């Protein structure tokens, strides 16, 4: 094995320190969430999970309104995922595959929506939704979240589709496929993992979003909106367990999509 130079050593020290900076807070909230309730009020706190217990987590989950809001959050996230893929993926495909007048304009328009604080638009939308009778429903939140996710979905799916060479579809067309058939048999199977990663990210985006959800709902809150609205009146165990609960999907989903990180973000921005 090659002898490690000092710069290699320092590189690894720095790498580990930066990783600890990210991981340690997650570790601490996990320790807190799986401590019994009386330990949570204790001071000084144990830094290691001495007494692992589900008591705190169960307390959170059984608190009134939590389970319903979890269910709503999942429904909203799935709706967002479905609508933004159904609406955005065709546009992504068009941007990736066709050369047509207005293509660049559309692309720039989509990219520049990122310069707008889209969630803030939930305030005027809430007023409209009240008039339409959609206010305080999962649909209203899903519609807003889709608007939030759509530019992202369009750009990501377009880069995912662009990663499949046009030649492959054209080859299929010379071998007897229609354009739709070529998409179905060639592009779709090849882009499925990338599209799934985009979908997962959309799901996380919606699961995490709190401002618009809190504005657009009153009684039918999503999980983050519910936690936010009761946060400052809640006991510590509720807060810690809630924080950890909100964080879990993030950790799991990141594991799934880490291979596509740069497809999702790296290429979107260039």
């Amino acid at each position: 094995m090659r002898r490690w130079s000092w710069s290699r050593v320092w590189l690894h020290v720095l790498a580990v320190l930066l990783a600890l900076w990210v991981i340690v807070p997650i570790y601490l909230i996990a320790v807190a969430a799986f401590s019994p309730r009386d330990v949570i009020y204790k001071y000084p706190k144990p830094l290691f999970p001495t007494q692992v217990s589900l008591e705190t987590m169960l307390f959170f989950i059984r608190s009134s309104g939590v389970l319903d809001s979890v269910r709503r959050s999942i429904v909203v996230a799935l709706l967002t995922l479905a609508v933004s893929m159904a609406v955005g993926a065709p546009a992504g495909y068009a941007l990736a595959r066709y050369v047509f007048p207005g293509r660049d304009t559309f692309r720039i328009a989509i990219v520049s929506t990122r310069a707008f604080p889209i969630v803030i638009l939930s305030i005027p939308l809430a007023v409209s939704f009240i008039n339409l009778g959609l206010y305080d429903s999962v649909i209203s939140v899903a519609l807003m979240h889709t608007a939030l996710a759509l530019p992202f979905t369009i750009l990501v799916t377009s880069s995912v589709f662009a990663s499949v060479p046009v030649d492959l579809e054209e080859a299929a067309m010379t071998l007897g496929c229609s354009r739709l058939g070529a998409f179905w048999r060639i592009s779709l199977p090849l882009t499925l993992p990338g599209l799934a990663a985009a979908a997962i990210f959309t799901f996380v985006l919606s699961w995490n979003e709190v401002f618009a959800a809190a504005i657009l709902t009153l009684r039918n809150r999503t999980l983050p909106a519910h936690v936010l609205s009761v946060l400052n009146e809640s006991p510590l165990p509720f807060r810690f367990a809630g924080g950890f609960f909100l964080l879990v999907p993030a950790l799991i989903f990141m594991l799934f999509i880490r291979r596509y990180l740069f497809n999702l973000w790296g290429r979107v921005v260039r």
Partner: protein
Amino acid sequence: MTRKMNWEPYLLLLPSFFYLIFFFGWPMLQAFSLALRGEDGGWTLAHIQRMVNDTFFREAVITTIALIVAILPIQFLVALAMALVVNARPRGAGLFLYFYAVPLAISDLAAGIVWFAIFTQRGYLNTILQAIGLIEKPIIFLNYQKPLWVLMAIVIAEVWRATAIIMVILVAGLQSIPNDYLEAAEIFGAGLFERVTQIILPLLRPSLQVALILRTILAFQAFAVVVALAGQGATVLAKEAYKWYTDIRNPHVAAAYAGLIMVLSIATTVFYLRTLRTPEEVSL
């Protein structure tokens, strides 16, 4: 010259186009209409005046901007360090990248709660400080009387949560810099510091610009972290908008805040694009 017009791409774009008109373009106009029109439908500056004259307005504006000024430089340093580390391919580079990127999927609310668990009086920071003997009794960090401490906590939580996005953009940018350039610089005698400042940073300029714009826009919307860490102790623009809408039930003033955030965002974007114009072309 073209004999046939191909309508396929337009058909594919149509749903997105209409969706964004209805749920992006129209509410944007609606926001200004709400903020600038009275109950009778006439134009008025009353809502704006009410916003500006509100007790919390000044604090919200100052805090929001102070947070941006404090957070962004730290974030860019940390993100650059992470990106350079990942790009230097340490052992387990993939794992490090995953760790660094995890906060990408963590919500601002969850991040706020995580750091609340650390900064609260009976929290982990006090536990650790006392364990190593730096303090004798717990410090109250999140105290209304000490707004600077509260702001610091928010800065740390935001740096923790929102650095990942910059890191990913920078890593992607770094990967597009051919290794030849760095090797050539090394041959001509450039050390690590020179390579970073002379080669990497100038070539990363487009990526830095994109990251800067994205981060600033998001920072103007800072909300849940502030609620979780400061409670009623500090306020920012988005929090005021939320308060006016849900607690005070005045959508007009809330829309005025929304409009203000929008105007600030667009102004900063334009400012960045003008001052940081990249040599070739502006790539947002």
